[in-house]
């Protein structure tokens, strides 16, 4: 049976391949997203002191270390059974918002904007960030500046843009200084301008991508995100909630102690990435999505003025949940706007310069779970320790794992729409990749990979003979 293989998928964080299975008539029968390399952090941390986990686990990825640092520290807070000082919590929130800004800016401007600006059918030699730099330098400058803003906040607070320290079990290691606060505040206005400009531009582009809106993982599914009583956007504190495509609450008030009753994890024979599913419905029916789209579907308000205006407009896309994963891009921009606004509010809080930023304690629990909304979606760190405080087992449930079933389903949907017959065309194949890119998967977090990314597409006949191959 003919198979098209895209290996590896480009412009995502990490390495993966896609296989598209054709039937005898050349119609798409099945499509799969495979993560091809293993990471293994859950195993290598066994036997290490739990206090080392934030620094160690953050090394899983160079794009998302801040998210892992936060989730891991929250799990350690749980082991120590401490309530961290209010100032520390606010500072951690700022760090998380900065991470959302820099990561979303990376996804939108660096990874996906070539598709929007240069077109899905453009020559792949041009359809990349360097093509954007040459043809749309103002947009490229904005993207770099916005990401730089998020990174600079992380560096200001954590000492480094990549793999910062500072966030520790019990809080943060040292307080924020007034000059640091003022420096960040001084950049807020420009960051908002860039984001509003990108939002305005993107909304004007949507009509040119109707086919992609229709076919990019556009189907009913459950959504999972952090929730709170106020039904506001929540990325740091709250419980987990599942909703369905009609915005009905399916499961609520899920905490670290019972997440495993609702979230199942399944291993796959053809991928190192696990698939998670809503346990009460089983693997076959329990597909759900996390990340920006899920979070905006989940909340009734963002909680900030400008983001709320954008959220109201976003909600007009559909009567109930917004279902097309193409709108992940749109949701990312709204989340950036929210993050900047919320950060400004937190920085103006008189408590933000407070000196009490860390609680100290020995282990008081043998188990701890930290849950956070990372840029790409819900992130869970779960540790068990022995009586000496050494890690006995660790489990990390990563956004890309949550989305794995939906990514696979989306690849199949877009392949059926755009892959016709045995001829390989770059534009067609880029759309198959682009549906994966819409989820902004981070494969380094969910497993890992090294090396240079390229594209290798193989068209195989029913008997395994290679009929055609494209590489870039």
């Amino acid at each position, binding site marked *: 049976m003919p198979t098209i293989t895209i290996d590896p998928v480009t*412009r995502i964080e990490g390495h993966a391949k896609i296989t598209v299975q054709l039937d005898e008539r050349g119609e798409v029968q099945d499509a799969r997203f495979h993560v091809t390399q293993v990471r293994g952090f859950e195993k290598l941390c066994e036997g290490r002191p739990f206090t080392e986990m934030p620094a160690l686990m953050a090394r899983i990825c160079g794009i998302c270390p801040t998210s892992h640092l936060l989730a891991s520290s929250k799990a350690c807070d749980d082991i120590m059974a401490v309530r961290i000082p209010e100032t520390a919590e606010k500072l951690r929130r700022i760090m998380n918002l900065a991470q959302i800004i820099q990561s979303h800016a*990376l996804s939108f401007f*660096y990874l996906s904007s070539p598709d929007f600006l240069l077109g899905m059918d453009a020559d792949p*030699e041009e359809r*990349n*960030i360097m093509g954007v*730099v040459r043809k749309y330098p103002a947009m490229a400058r904005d993207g*770099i500046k916005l*990401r*730089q803003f998020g990174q600079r906040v992380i560096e200001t607070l954590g000492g480094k843009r990549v793999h910062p320290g500072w966030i520790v079990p019990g809080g943060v290691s040292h307080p924020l200084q007034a000059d640091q606060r003022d420096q960040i505040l001084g950049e807020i206005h420009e960051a908002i301008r860039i984001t509003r400009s990108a939002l305005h531009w993107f909304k004007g582009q949507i009509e040119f991508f109707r086919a992609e809106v229709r076919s990019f993982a556009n189907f009913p599914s459950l959504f999972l995100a952090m929730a709170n009583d106020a039904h506001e956007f929540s990325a740091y504190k709250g419980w987990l909630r599942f909703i369905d495509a009609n915005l009905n609450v399916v499961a609520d008030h899920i905490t670290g102690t019972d997440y495993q009753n609702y979230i199942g994890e399944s291993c796959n024979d053809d991928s190192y990435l696990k698939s998670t599913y809503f346990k009460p419905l089983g693997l076959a029916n329990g597909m759900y999505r996390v990340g920006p789209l899920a979070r905006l579907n989940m909340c009734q308000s963002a909680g900030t003025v400008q983001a709320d205006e954008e959220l109201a407009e976003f909600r007009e896309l559909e009567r109930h949940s917004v279902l097309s994963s193409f709108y992940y891009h749109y949701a990312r921009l709204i989340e950036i706007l929210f993050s900047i606004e919320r950060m400004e509010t937190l920085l103006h809080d008189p408590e933000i310069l407070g000196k009490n930023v860390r609680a100290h304690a020995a282990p008081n629990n043998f188990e701890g779970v930290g849950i956070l909304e990372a840029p790409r979606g819900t992130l869970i760190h779960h540790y068990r320790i022995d009586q000496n405080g050494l890690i006995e087992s660790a489990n990390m449930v990563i956004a890309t794992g949550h989305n794995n079933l939906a990514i696979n389903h989306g690849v199949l949907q877009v392949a059926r729409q755009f892959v016709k017959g045995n001829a390989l065309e770059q534009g067609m194949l880029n759309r198959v990749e682009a549906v994966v890119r819409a989820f902004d998967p981070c494969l380094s977090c969910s497993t890992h990979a090294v090396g240079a990314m390229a594209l290798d597409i193989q068209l195989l006949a029913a008997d395994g003979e290679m009929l055609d191959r494209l590489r870039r």
Partner: protein
Amino acid sequence: MAGVLIIGYGNTLRGDDALGPLALERLRTQLGDAEFLSCHQLTPELAERLAACDLALFVDATSSGEPGTVEVQLLSPETSEADSLTHHVGPAVLLDLARTLYGRAPLAMLITGAGARFESTEGLSQEGQQALDEICRLIPMLV
């Protein structure tokens, strides 16, 4: 020495790959007027700072060449077909970004020291140490 930016990059946990950051540590006291930037990798966000300086020196380690030797290379902006700038860009591409996005690229040189050991370890090999000494001897003459 107005407008001199010295960027040392590499992984300090990978033996001689630390040459760039270690050279910066040593030169900071000698070249007080220069701006120093130590990082794991070059990223697009550095382009704006490059456009604002007159002379940029990139200090890197290499696994090719005779271990212990140092090479100085004049750089010019170079376009790239790289499809992603998320993790790493080369110095010449960074110069091109500075020129294209911010209107100017500085005079720039790449100083590479050939190392002998790049496995997961802290500290330099004997050859790495030799290259570091040579880099720190050369750079004050270049600025």
